[in-house]
């Protein structure tokens, strides 16, 4: 109990997030208990959120370095399209397992390359991450449009569709993959040397340089891992919808950033937790599914997400100011 308490209340942000999560659950229990708390609803939610979840992980990693990655969605789309093209030209829906494995591997490789390009621009040329990744976002999406010639590629083999639509013991595969990824992220951030370096670099890159930490290496690893994670999102997206299109999920990129910030990743770098990301993405999914069940127009979804995100940011800033005033007084 003590432990749970300390986990929940040590970090104010996490506490607030948890309250929001609980509030949403209670609201659903009052308003639509018979429809919300069903296996079907949970299965459908668990299929929907992982793609944004993966993009959130990638966005969060770069945010922790003190940078920002606007190209996550571009990377996802481009890698997914490369996989789609490979399957399309090798038998389409009749393609064999070998082709699917090759396509998935190619997608991961594309994700890796996108990450490398981002890293080169940021770490080698010293371009501001926001500008570099805004450029590469357009580059990646543009490449996707060229490859698809602007139209959608569809009809994938069953084996590929299983990634986005399959279930193991009743649990959708994307959700399983996402939980696994969050667990790895949690371990990475709190139990590994590289996780430590990532945080330290994000807090003060000058001091980490003067401490003998290889800043360039840290940046490269982050962007490359981020790129691979994005390509997973791309595969899940296109597998779930059985269609690959270059303009798919174009609002995902910015949403991923917001979900990461909502999950407690600091915009100035050096802070963030895997548990916060999980909580924030699930809360948002609950809200959007809940509204669906309540027959609130789907046009409202973005509006409500946006309002919630802005609210949480405001709370964060207000809290911050109080803290600052206190430390100022203590220092004097």
């Amino acid at each position: 109990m003590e432990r749970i308490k300390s986990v929940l209340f040590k970090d104010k942000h996490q506490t607030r997030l948890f309250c929001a999560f609980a509030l949403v659950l209670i609201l659903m229990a009052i308003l639509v208990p018979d429809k919300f708390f069903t296996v079907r609803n949970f299965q459908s939610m668990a299929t929907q959120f992982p793609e944004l979840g993966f993009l959130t992980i990638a966005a969060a990693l770069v945010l922790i370095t003190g940078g920002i990655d606007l190209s996550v969605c571009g990377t996802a789309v481009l890698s997914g399209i490369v996989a789609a093209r490979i399957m399309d030209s090798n038998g389409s829906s009749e393609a064999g397992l070998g082709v699917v494995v090759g396509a998935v591997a190619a997608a991961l490789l594309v994700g890796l390359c996108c990450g490398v390009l981002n890293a080169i621009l940021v770490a080698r040329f010293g371009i501001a991450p926001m500008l570099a990744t805004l450029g590469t976002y357009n580059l990646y999406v543009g490449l996707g449009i060229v490859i698809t010639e602007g139209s959608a590629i569809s009809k994938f083999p069953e084996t590929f569709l299983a990634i986005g639509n399959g279930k193991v013991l009743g649990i959708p595969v994307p959700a399983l993959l996402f939980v696994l990824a969050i667990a790895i992220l949690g371990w990475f951030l709190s139990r590994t040397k590289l996780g430590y370096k990532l945080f330290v670099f994000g807090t003060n890159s000058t001091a980490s340089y003067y401490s003998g930490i290889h800043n360039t290496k840290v940046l490269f690893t982050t962007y490359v891992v981020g790129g691979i994670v994005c390509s997973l999102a791309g595969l899940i997206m296109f597998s779930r919808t059985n269609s690959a299109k270059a303009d798919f999920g174009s609002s995902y990129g910015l949403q991923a950033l917001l979900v990461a910030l909502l999950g407690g990743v600091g915009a100035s770098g050096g802070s963030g937790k895997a548990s916060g990301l999980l909580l924030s993405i699930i809360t948002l999914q609950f809200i959007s599914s809940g509204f669906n069940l309540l027959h609130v127009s789907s046009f409202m979804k973005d509006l409500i997400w946006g309002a919630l995100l802005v609210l949480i940011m405001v709370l964060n800033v207000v809290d911050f100011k109080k803290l600052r005033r206190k430390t100022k007084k203590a220092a004097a």
Partner: protein
Amino acid sequence: MGAPFLEIRNCSINFGGVKALQNVDFSIEAGQAYCLMGENGSGKSTLIKIISGVYTATSGEMILDGKHYTNITPKQAIEAGVQVIYQDFSVFPNLTVAENIAISGIMSGKKKTVDRKKMREVAAEALARINVDLPLDKRVEELPVAGKQLVAIARGIAQDAKLIIMDEPTTALTHKEILALYEIIDNLKKKGIALIFVSHKLEEVMQISERIAILRNGQKVLDDSIENFDVNSVAYYMTGREVPDVPYELVEVPEGTAPILELEGLTMKDKFEDITLSLYPKEVLGITGQLGCGRTELAQALFGIGEYTGTVKLNGEVVEIKTVQDALRLKIGYVPEDRLSEGLFLTRSLSDNLAAASIDDLADGIRLDYKKVEDTGRQWVEDLKIVIGDILDPASSLSGGNQQRIVLAKWLATNPRLLILNCPTVGVDVGSKSQIHEIVKDLARKGIGVIVISDDIGEVMSLCSRVLVMKKGRIVRQTNRTEMTVSQLEDYLTKEE
């Protein structure tokens, strides 16, 4: 001697449960210069903030220019003639000298338009009153540090300052600029302006002040005229205990001893040239020289920052130091000049800070055990007697002296054979300074090669066995501590070529 310009009676202020000031009396007359000393957290800045109206005292009263106040606002304080010049001078770098000096007049006036001609007149007059010549149309960011300070002083003068409070006025100045500042201060005094200096540096205090007040733990422990004051007792008053200032013992280097470090003809384009030196075991080598003489670049070159030509030998072996990682592998450590931006991760825990340079040794493959990081950190805190709350508190929670020891410990954790310290005691109070000196001496005794770069001639002469003087990128003089006195070395440094 008339009535005091400022008088504070029985002033106390509490922050939560902390008594930041207790029953402090203080008074200053027109044309007088006061030095206010005390360790970090002794209440100096609090007192200044009460005078300038930023804080309201919990009890006590203040009489400013004959008027009684119980809670003065910053605006009232400025109108009464109180001007505070902070360490960063609070100038607008993107505005011109004239704009900076005249800005308060512009901002507080009723007019919505700016009269450029009037502005220049105001600025020129203020500069004339302190006998300084600065280009009115130059942007302030293009001025050297000393110039920015002059702009800040002139801005105070333009607002009819009657009491100027300066926080650490000489920290960033070269010796020559300090001398120029003294002259201006003398001038201000003659014009009847009262001055309060907050300072850590004893020598300057003695030269410019008539009186000295020392605070400790929120109480005034000394208030006397400079003539009656014994320099050697400062440390005692500030810390409440005797602080030893024992010079580092001179060691005879036996004939044929192999040096730890040898440099031959080390050159970095436009930074330093043809540096040849050697460092023997049990020696502390001091390097001094004015800002921009190449001392920092030399230290950084040995730490893998910047490209150099020439040879570096470590324990007799020629080594290439191209990156910081090379330096780390060769067991060279560097405590940088600016601990806040280059040394510390202010928002991270102390244990994270302590582990930063030795993280590869602490980790087990790719795994890192934070428990081990914390335990190792606690050990260092104990070894160096660093005063902390909890090992998981952020580095920003510590005082300057303790922060500096954290940076030092970060490097000691790498088990270095050569440690370069760049201005290790800047902004550190007397007590911590002597503790840092003791740590450095101990390292040298253990056989770690130590190079100390410092502006503080007193420090160099007490801590180092040998001192090298750099000017314009070259070593111009090498001296043993016994060959020169502190003031001789100071004169040598400021002498024009």
